[in-house]
Protein backbone atom coordinates (compact mmCIF):
# COMPACT_ATOMS: atom_id res chain seq x y z
CA UNK A 1 0.00 0.00 0.00
CA UNK A 2 1.14 3.54 -0.85
CA UNK A 3 0.20 6.73 0.97
CA UNK A 4 0.07 10.06 -0.88
CA UNK A 5 -0.51 13.35 0.96
CA UNK A 6 -3.31 15.21 -0.86
CA UNK A 7 -5.34 18.38 -0.54
CA UNK A 8 -8.70 16.76 -1.38
CA UNK A 9 -10.18 13.26 -1.09
CA UNK A 10 -9.87 11.88 -4.64
CA UNK A 11 -7.23 10.57 -7.05
CA UNK A 12 -7.33 13.69 -9.23
CA UNK A 13 -6.62 16.06 -6.35
CA UNK A 14 -3.28 17.85 -6.16
CA UNK A 15 -0.57 16.38 -3.95
CA UNK A 16 -0.18 18.36 -0.73
CA UNK A 17 3.54 19.06 -0.24
CA UNK A 18 3.28 19.30 3.56
CA UNK A 19 3.29 15.74 4.89
CA UNK A 20 2.27 16.35 8.50
CA UNK A 21 -0.28 19.03 7.68
CA UNK A 22 -1.82 17.78 4.47
CA UNK A 23 -5.63 17.69 4.27
CA UNK A 24 -5.93 13.98 3.40
CA UNK A 25 -3.88 10.83 3.32
CA UNK A 26 -4.81 8.82 0.25
CA UNK A 27 -3.94 5.21 1.05
CA UNK A 28 -4.02 3.28 -2.20
CA UNK A 29 -3.21 -0.01 -3.80
CA UNK A 30 -1.02 0.81 -6.84
CA UNK A 31 -2.09 -2.41 -8.60
CA UNK A 32 -5.77 -1.51 -8.98
CA UNK A 33 -5.79 2.13 -7.76
CA UNK A 34 -8.39 1.28 -5.10
CA UNK A 35 -8.07 3.96 -2.46
CA UNK A 36 -9.16 5.13 0.94
CA UNK A 37 -9.03 8.85 1.82
CA UNK A 38 -8.33 9.57 5.47
CA UNK A 39 -8.78 13.15 6.70
CA UNK A 40 -5.70 14.36 8.58
CA UNK A 41 -6.59 15.33 12.12
CA UNK A 42 -3.21 17.05 12.53
CA UNK A 43 -3.85 19.90 10.07
CA UNK A 44 -4.28 22.47 12.83
CA UNK A 45 -2.01 20.84 15.43
CA UNK A 46 0.54 23.14 17.03
CA UNK A 47 3.18 20.43 17.14
CA UNK A 48 3.71 16.71 16.64
CA UNK A 49 1.73 16.69 13.39
CA UNK A 50 4.40 14.68 11.60
CA UNK A 51 4.61 11.94 14.23
CA UNK A 52 0.84 11.65 14.40
CA UNK A 53 0.65 11.47 10.61
CA UNK A 54 3.29 8.73 10.53
CA UNK A 55 1.32 6.79 13.15
CA UNK A 56 -1.93 7.14 11.18
CA UNK A 57 -0.52 5.83 7.92
CA UNK A 58 1.50 3.08 9.61
CA UNK A 59 -1.75 1.84 11.19
CA UNK A 60 -3.32 1.70 7.72
CA UNK A 61 -0.52 -0.54 6.49
CA UNK A 62 1.23 1.88 4.14
CA UNK A 63 4.72 0.75 3.12
CA UNK A 64 5.62 3.85 1.10
CA UNK A 65 4.72 7.52 1.49
CA UNK A 66 4.89 9.98 -1.41
CA UNK A 67 4.83 13.67 -0.48
CA UNK A 68 6.55 17.03 -1.02
CA UNK A 69 8.53 17.53 2.19
CA UNK A 70 9.00 15.74 5.51
CA UNK A 71 10.26 17.30 8.71
CA UNK A 72 12.76 15.71 11.12
CA UNK A 73 10.18 14.17 13.49
CA UNK A 74 8.05 12.70 10.72
CA UNK A 75 11.21 11.37 9.12
CA UNK A 76 12.28 9.59 12.31
CA UNK A 77 8.81 8.18 12.95
CA UNK A 78 8.39 6.95 9.37
CA UNK A 79 11.86 5.39 9.33
CA UNK A 80 11.18 3.67 12.65
CA UNK A 81 7.96 2.21 11.21
CA UNK A 82 9.93 0.93 8.20
CA UNK A 83 8.04 3.13 5.75
CA UNK A 84 9.83 4.15 2.56
CA UNK A 85 9.79 7.95 2.04
CA UNK A 86 9.61 9.64 -1.35
CA UNK A 87 9.78 13.47 -1.37
CA UNK A 88 9.84 16.26 -3.93
CA UNK A 89 6.80 14.93 -5.76
CA UNK A 90 4.19 17.21 -7.35
CA UNK A 91 1.10 16.82 -9.54
CA UNK A 92 -2.15 14.97 -8.94
CA UNK A 93 -2.28 11.82 -6.78
CA UNK A 94 -2.85 9.68 -9.88
CA UNK A 95 0.12 11.26 -11.71
CA UNK A 96 2.58 10.81 -8.86
CA UNK A 97 1.57 7.16 -8.38
CA UNK A 98 2.11 6.55 -12.11
CA UNK A 99 5.54 8.18 -11.90
CA UNK A 100 6.36 6.17 -8.79
CA UNK A 101 5.41 2.93 -10.55
CA UNK A 102 7.72 3.84 -13.44
CA UNK A 103 10.53 4.30 -10.93
CA UNK A 104 10.92 8.04 -11.52
CA UNK A 105 11.31 8.91 -7.83
CA UNK A 106 14.06 7.92 -5.43
CA UNK A 107 13.89 7.23 -1.76
CA UNK A 108 14.74 10.07 0.64
CA UNK A 109 17.31 9.38 3.32
CA UNK A 110 17.09 12.61 5.32
CA UNK A 111 14.41 15.12 6.37
CA UNK A 112 13.85 17.76 3.68
CA UNK A 113 12.63 20.66 5.86
CA UNK A 114 13.06 21.85 9.44
CA UNK A 115 10.41 21.34 12.09
CA UNK A 116 7.11 23.29 11.99
CA UNK A 117 7.67 24.03 8.32
CA UNK A 118 4.07 23.57 7.21
CA UNK A 119 2.47 25.47 10.09
CA UNK A 120 2.12 28.77 8.25
CA UNK A 121 5.49 28.93 6.56
CA UNK A 122 6.67 32.01 8.45
CA UNK A 123 9.68 32.10 10.69
Amino acid at each position, binding site marked *: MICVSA*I*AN*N*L*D*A*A*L*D*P*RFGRCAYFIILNPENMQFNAIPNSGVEATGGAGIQAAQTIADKGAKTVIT*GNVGPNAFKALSAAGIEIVT*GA*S*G*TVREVVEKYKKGQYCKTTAPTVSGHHGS*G*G*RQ
Partner: protein
Amino acid sequence: MTKTSPKQESITNQATSCSTSTAQKEQEQKTQLKLEKIKHKIAIISGKGGVGKSTVTANLAMAYASEGHKVGILDADLHGPCIPKMLGIERQPLKSGIAGIFPAVGKLGIKVVSMDFFLPSDEAPLIWRGPLKMRAIEQFIGDVAWGELDYLFIDLPPGTGDEPLSIMHFIPDMDGVVIVTMPSELSEAIVKKSVTFAKETGIPVIGIVENLSGYVCPDCGKKVDIFKSGGGKRISDALSVPYLGSIPIDPRVCIDSDSGLPFMAANQSLPVAKAFIEIVAKIKEFLSVNQFLSNQEKKVKP
Protein backbone atom coordinates in the same frame (compact mmCIF):
# COMPACT_ATOMS: atom_id res chain seq x y z
CA MET B 1 15.33 37.01 2.07
CA THR B 2 17.19 40.28 1.78
CA LYS B 3 18.54 41.83 4.92
CA THR B 4 18.82 45.59 5.07
CA SER B 5 22.48 46.45 5.30
CA PRO B 6 23.57 49.36 7.53
CA LYS B 7 24.28 51.31 4.36
CA GLN B 8 20.76 50.84 3.06
CA GLU B 9 19.41 51.75 6.47
CA SER B 10 21.18 55.10 6.40
CA ILE B 11 19.83 55.81 2.94
CA THR B 12 16.30 55.12 4.19
CA ASN B 13 16.83 57.46 7.13
CA GLN B 14 18.10 60.18 4.86
CA ALA B 15 15.14 59.73 2.59
CA THR B 16 12.70 60.66 5.33
CA SER B 17 14.54 63.89 6.01
CA CYS B 18 15.21 64.61 2.35
CA SER B 19 12.75 65.69 -0.30
CA THR B 20 9.85 63.41 -1.13
CA SER B 21 11.30 62.65 -4.54
CA THR B 22 14.23 60.84 -2.90
CA ALA B 23 11.79 58.77 -0.85
CA GLN B 24 9.88 58.00 -3.98
CA LYS B 25 13.04 56.86 -5.76
CA GLU B 26 13.89 54.66 -2.79
CA GLN B 27 10.49 53.00 -2.94
CA GLU B 28 10.83 52.51 -6.68
CA GLN B 29 14.21 50.86 -6.22
CA LYS B 30 12.77 48.60 -3.53
CA THR B 31 9.96 47.61 -5.85
CA GLN B 32 12.42 46.82 -8.63
CA LEU B 33 14.55 44.67 -6.31
CA LYS B 34 11.50 42.64 -5.32
CA LEU B 35 10.39 42.21 -8.92
CA GLU B 36 13.81 40.99 -10.05
CA LYS B 37 13.37 37.84 -7.97
CA ILE B 38 10.06 36.99 -9.63
CA LYS B 39 10.54 35.17 -12.93
CA HIS B 40 7.10 35.60 -14.49
CA LYS B 41 4.40 38.17 -13.81
CA ILE B 42 0.95 37.73 -15.28
CA ALA B 43 -2.06 39.99 -14.68
CA ILE B 44 -5.65 38.84 -15.03
CA ILE B 45 -8.01 41.58 -16.23
CA SER B 46 -11.54 41.96 -17.57
CA GLY B 47 -13.85 44.63 -18.89
CA LYS B 48 -16.93 43.79 -16.89
CA GLY B 49 -17.13 42.58 -13.29
CA GLY B 50 -18.30 39.17 -12.19
CA VAL B 51 -16.90 37.25 -15.14
CA GLY B 52 -14.57 35.10 -13.04
CA LYS B 53 -11.19 36.84 -12.92
CA SER B 54 -10.48 35.68 -9.39
CA THR B 55 -11.60 32.13 -10.17
CA VAL B 56 -9.26 32.09 -13.16
CA THR B 57 -6.43 33.61 -11.07
CA ALA B 58 -6.84 31.16 -8.18
CA ASN B 59 -6.96 28.17 -10.51
CA LEU B 60 -4.01 29.34 -12.60
CA ALA B 61 -2.03 29.64 -9.38
CA MET B 62 -3.14 26.16 -8.27
CA ALA B 63 -2.29 24.67 -11.67
CA TYR B 64 1.27 25.99 -11.52
CA ALA B 65 1.73 25.29 -7.81
CA SER B 66 0.60 21.69 -8.19
CA GLU B 67 3.42 21.22 -10.70
CA GLY B 68 5.88 22.23 -8.00
CA HIS B 69 6.44 25.88 -9.01
CA LYS B 70 6.78 28.67 -6.46
CA VAL B 71 3.67 30.80 -6.92
CA GLY B 72 2.32 34.05 -5.51
CA ILE B 73 -0.93 35.96 -5.92
CA LEU B 74 -1.16 39.73 -5.59
CA ASP B 75 -4.82 40.52 -5.04
CA ALA B 76 -4.97 44.04 -6.49
CA ASP B 77 -8.76 44.16 -6.21
CA LEU B 78 -8.60 46.47 -3.21
CA HIS B 79 -12.33 47.09 -2.84
CA GLY B 80 -13.55 43.55 -3.39
CA PRO B 81 -10.74 41.15 -2.49
CA CYS B 82 -11.86 37.53 -2.96
CA ILE B 83 -8.65 35.54 -3.44
CA PRO B 84 -8.16 34.82 0.31
CA LYS B 85 -11.66 33.35 0.64
CA MET B 86 -11.11 31.19 -2.45
CA LEU B 87 -7.91 29.79 -0.95
CA GLY B 88 -9.37 29.36 2.54
CA ILE B 89 -7.07 31.90 4.21
CA GLU B 90 -9.40 34.85 4.69
CA ARG B 91 -8.77 37.40 7.39
CA GLN B 92 -5.37 36.03 8.31
CA PRO B 93 -3.22 38.57 10.16
CA LEU B 94 0.09 39.19 8.39
CA LYS B 95 3.41 39.31 10.23
CA SER B 96 6.34 41.46 9.31
CA GLY B 97 10.09 41.38 9.78
CA ILE B 98 13.28 42.94 8.44
CA ALA B 99 12.54 41.72 4.92
CA GLY B 100 9.09 43.33 4.94
CA ILE B 101 5.55 42.05 5.31
CA PHE B 102 5.33 38.27 5.05
CA PRO B 103 2.58 37.16 2.69
CA ALA B 104 -0.03 34.70 3.92
CA VAL B 105 0.69 31.15 2.79
CA GLY B 106 -2.21 29.17 1.37
CA LYS B 107 -2.60 25.65 0.04
CA LEU B 108 0.35 24.26 -1.95
CA GLY B 109 2.49 27.02 -0.49
CA ILE B 110 0.89 29.81 -2.55
CA LYS B 111 1.88 33.22 -1.16
CA VAL B 112 -0.93 35.77 -1.03
CA VAL B 113 -1.18 39.47 -0.29
CA SER B 114 -4.62 41.04 -0.30
CA MET B 115 -6.45 44.02 1.17
CA ASP B 116 -8.63 41.44 2.93
CA PHE B 117 -5.81 40.85 5.45
CA PHE B 118 -5.73 44.53 6.40
CA LEU B 119 -9.43 45.26 6.83
CA PRO B 120 -10.87 45.06 10.34
CA SER B 121 -13.94 42.99 9.43
CA ASP B 122 -15.82 41.33 6.59
CA GLU B 123 -18.27 44.21 6.28
CA ALA B 124 -15.65 46.98 6.42
CA PRO B 125 -15.39 48.70 3.05
CA LEU B 126 -12.27 50.38 1.75
CA ILE B 127 -13.13 54.03 1.13
CA TRP B 128 -10.11 55.27 -0.79
CA ARG B 129 -9.39 57.43 -3.79
CA GLY B 130 -6.82 56.93 -6.55
CA PRO B 131 -3.53 58.14 -5.02
CA LEU B 132 -3.95 56.04 -1.88
CA LYS B 133 -4.76 52.97 -3.95
CA MET B 134 -1.64 53.52 -6.03
CA ARG B 135 0.48 53.69 -2.85
CA ALA B 136 -1.12 50.51 -1.52
CA ILE B 137 -0.33 48.63 -4.71
CA GLU B 138 3.23 49.91 -4.70
CA GLN B 139 3.60 48.63 -1.14
CA PHE B 140 2.02 45.29 -2.02
CA ILE B 141 4.95 44.81 -4.38
CA GLY B 142 7.83 46.66 -2.73
CA ASP B 143 7.20 46.15 0.99
CA VAL B 144 6.20 42.49 0.83
CA ALA B 145 8.81 39.76 1.33
CA TRP B 146 7.79 37.77 -1.74
CA GLY B 147 11.15 36.04 -1.94
CA GLU B 148 12.04 33.97 -4.99
CA LEU B 149 8.97 33.19 -7.08
CA ASP B 150 8.51 31.41 -10.40
CA TYR B 151 5.13 33.01 -11.06
CA LEU B 152 3.24 35.98 -9.66
CA PHE B 153 -0.40 36.25 -10.69
CA ILE B 154 -2.07 39.62 -10.25
CA ASP B 155 -5.82 39.67 -9.78
CA LEU B 156 -7.13 43.06 -10.87
CA PRO B 157 -10.53 44.68 -10.40
CA PRO B 158 -12.68 45.00 -13.54
CA GLY B 159 -12.13 47.83 -15.98
CA THR B 160 -9.26 50.15 -16.74
CA GLY B 161 -9.09 52.36 -13.64
CA ASP B 162 -6.52 53.16 -10.92
CA GLU B 163 -5.50 49.64 -9.91
CA PRO B 164 -4.77 48.24 -13.39
CA LEU B 165 -2.97 51.46 -14.34
CA SER B 166 -0.82 51.35 -11.19
CA ILE B 167 0.09 47.70 -11.78
CA MET B 168 1.07 48.41 -15.39
CA HIS B 169 3.15 51.36 -14.15
CA PHE B 170 5.00 49.44 -11.44
CA ILE B 171 5.52 46.24 -13.43
CA PRO B 172 6.49 47.42 -16.92
CA ASP B 173 8.23 44.12 -17.73
CA MET B 174 5.06 42.09 -17.19
CA ASP B 175 4.91 38.89 -19.26
CA GLY B 176 1.38 39.69 -20.32
CA VAL B 177 -2.29 39.87 -19.41
CA VAL B 178 -4.94 37.20 -19.53
CA ILE B 179 -8.31 38.75 -20.34
CA VAL B 180 -11.38 37.04 -18.92
CA THR B 181 -14.80 37.52 -20.48
CA MET B 182 -18.16 35.82 -20.68
CA PRO B 183 -19.99 34.95 -23.89
CA SER B 184 -22.65 37.70 -23.80
CA GLU B 185 -22.58 40.60 -26.25
CA LEU B 186 -22.60 43.00 -23.31
CA SER B 187 -19.32 41.62 -22.01
CA GLU B 188 -17.99 41.43 -25.55
CA ALA B 189 -18.47 45.17 -26.06
CA ILE B 190 -16.67 46.09 -22.83
CA VAL B 191 -13.83 43.57 -23.02
CA LYS B 192 -12.64 45.25 -26.20
CA LYS B 193 -11.71 48.23 -24.02
CA SER B 194 -9.46 45.94 -21.97
CA VAL B 195 -7.70 44.69 -25.09
CA THR B 196 -7.09 48.29 -26.22
CA PHE B 197 -5.96 49.20 -22.69
CA ALA B 198 -3.32 46.46 -22.72
CA LYS B 199 -2.17 47.44 -26.19
CA GLU B 200 -1.89 51.13 -25.25
CA THR B 201 0.05 50.41 -22.08
CA GLY B 202 2.38 48.18 -24.10
CA ILE B 203 1.66 44.96 -22.20
CA PRO B 204 1.36 41.82 -24.38
CA VAL B 205 -2.05 40.12 -24.44
CA ILE B 206 -1.53 36.42 -23.69
CA GLY B 207 -5.10 35.74 -24.74
CA ILE B 208 -8.78 35.68 -23.97
CA VAL B 209 -10.51 33.17 -21.69
CA GLU B 210 -14.27 32.75 -22.09
CA ASN B 211 -15.72 31.83 -18.72
CA LEU B 212 -19.32 30.82 -17.91
CA SER B 213 -19.46 29.26 -21.35
CA GLY B 214 -22.50 26.98 -21.54
CA TYR B 215 -23.96 24.54 -19.04
CA VAL B 216 -24.24 20.81 -19.59
CA CYS B 217 -27.36 19.41 -17.90
CA PRO B 218 -26.25 16.63 -15.56
CA ASP B 219 -29.52 14.69 -16.17
CA CYS B 220 -29.95 14.76 -19.95
CA GLY B 221 -26.48 15.87 -21.09
CA LYS B 222 -27.92 18.68 -23.23
CA LYS B 223 -25.75 21.81 -23.48
CA VAL B 224 -27.52 25.08 -22.66
CA ASP B 225 -25.78 28.34 -23.61
CA ILE B 226 -26.98 30.42 -20.67
CA PHE B 227 -25.05 33.54 -21.71
CA LYS B 228 -25.07 32.82 -25.49
CA SER B 229 -21.86 31.46 -26.96
CA GLY B 230 -18.77 32.36 -28.94
CA GLY B 231 -18.30 35.92 -27.63
CA GLY B 232 -14.70 35.32 -26.64
CA LYS B 233 -13.83 33.77 -29.98
CA ARG B 234 -15.44 36.68 -31.86
CA ILE B 235 -13.39 39.28 -29.99
CA SER B 236 -10.20 37.31 -30.47
CA ASP B 237 -10.86 37.18 -34.22
CA ALA B 238 -11.93 40.82 -34.49
CA LEU B 239 -9.00 42.22 -32.51
CA SER B 240 -6.51 39.52 -33.52
CA VAL B 241 -5.55 38.41 -30.02
CA PRO B 242 -5.11 34.71 -29.13
CA TYR B 243 -8.09 32.70 -27.87
CA LEU B 244 -7.08 30.54 -24.92
CA GLY B 245 -10.28 28.55 -24.48
CA SER B 246 -13.60 28.41 -22.70
CA ILE B 247 -14.61 27.23 -19.24
CA PRO B 248 -18.09 25.71 -18.88
CA ILE B 249 -20.47 26.55 -16.03
CA ASP B 250 -20.31 23.95 -13.25
CA PRO B 251 -21.99 24.38 -9.86
CA ARG B 252 -19.05 22.54 -8.30
CA VAL B 253 -16.77 25.47 -9.20
CA CYS B 254 -18.82 27.69 -6.89
CA ILE B 255 -18.89 25.06 -4.14
CA ASP B 256 -15.11 24.60 -4.36
CA SER B 257 -14.42 28.35 -4.41
CA ASP B 258 -16.62 28.95 -1.38
CA SER B 259 -14.94 26.13 0.52
CA GLY B 260 -11.49 27.55 -0.15
CA LEU B 261 -10.20 24.87 -2.51
CA PRO B 262 -10.10 25.80 -6.23
CA PHE B 263 -11.11 23.01 -8.61
CA MET B 264 -7.63 22.67 -10.13
CA ALA B 265 -6.41 21.45 -6.76
CA ALA B 266 -9.55 19.61 -5.65
CA ASN B 267 -10.14 17.43 -8.70
CA GLN B 268 -8.40 17.65 -12.06
CA SER B 269 -10.74 15.12 -13.70
CA LEU B 270 -13.76 17.49 -13.78
CA PRO B 271 -14.74 18.85 -17.25
CA VAL B 272 -13.97 22.41 -16.04
CA ALA B 273 -10.52 21.32 -14.91
CA LYS B 274 -9.88 19.59 -18.23
CA ALA B 275 -10.85 22.78 -20.09
CA PHE B 276 -8.61 24.72 -17.76
CA ILE B 277 -5.62 22.43 -18.33
CA GLU B 278 -5.82 23.31 -22.06
CA ILE B 279 -5.84 27.03 -21.21
CA VAL B 280 -2.81 26.59 -18.94
CA ALA B 281 -1.00 24.74 -21.76
CA LYS B 282 -1.58 27.70 -24.11
CA ILE B 283 -0.32 30.18 -21.51
CA LYS B 284 2.81 28.05 -21.04
CA GLU B 285 3.34 28.02 -24.79
CA PHE B 286 3.05 31.82 -24.88
CA LEU B 287 5.56 32.20 -22.04
CA SER B 288 8.10 29.84 -23.57
CA VAL B 289 7.87 31.56 -26.97
CA ASN B 290 8.24 34.93 -25.22
CA GLN B 291 11.25 33.72 -23.26
CA PHE B 292 12.85 32.40 -26.42
CA LEU B 293 12.30 35.70 -28.23
CA SER B 294 13.70 37.81 -25.39
CA ASN B 295 16.76 35.53 -25.19
CA GLN B 296 17.27 35.99 -28.91
CA GLU B 297 17.02 39.76 -28.47
CA LYS B 298 19.67 39.68 -25.76
CA LYS B 299 21.95 37.73 -28.08
CA VAL B 300 21.54 40.33 -30.83
CA LYS B 301 22.18 43.24 -28.47
CA PRO B 302 25.43 42.47 -26.62
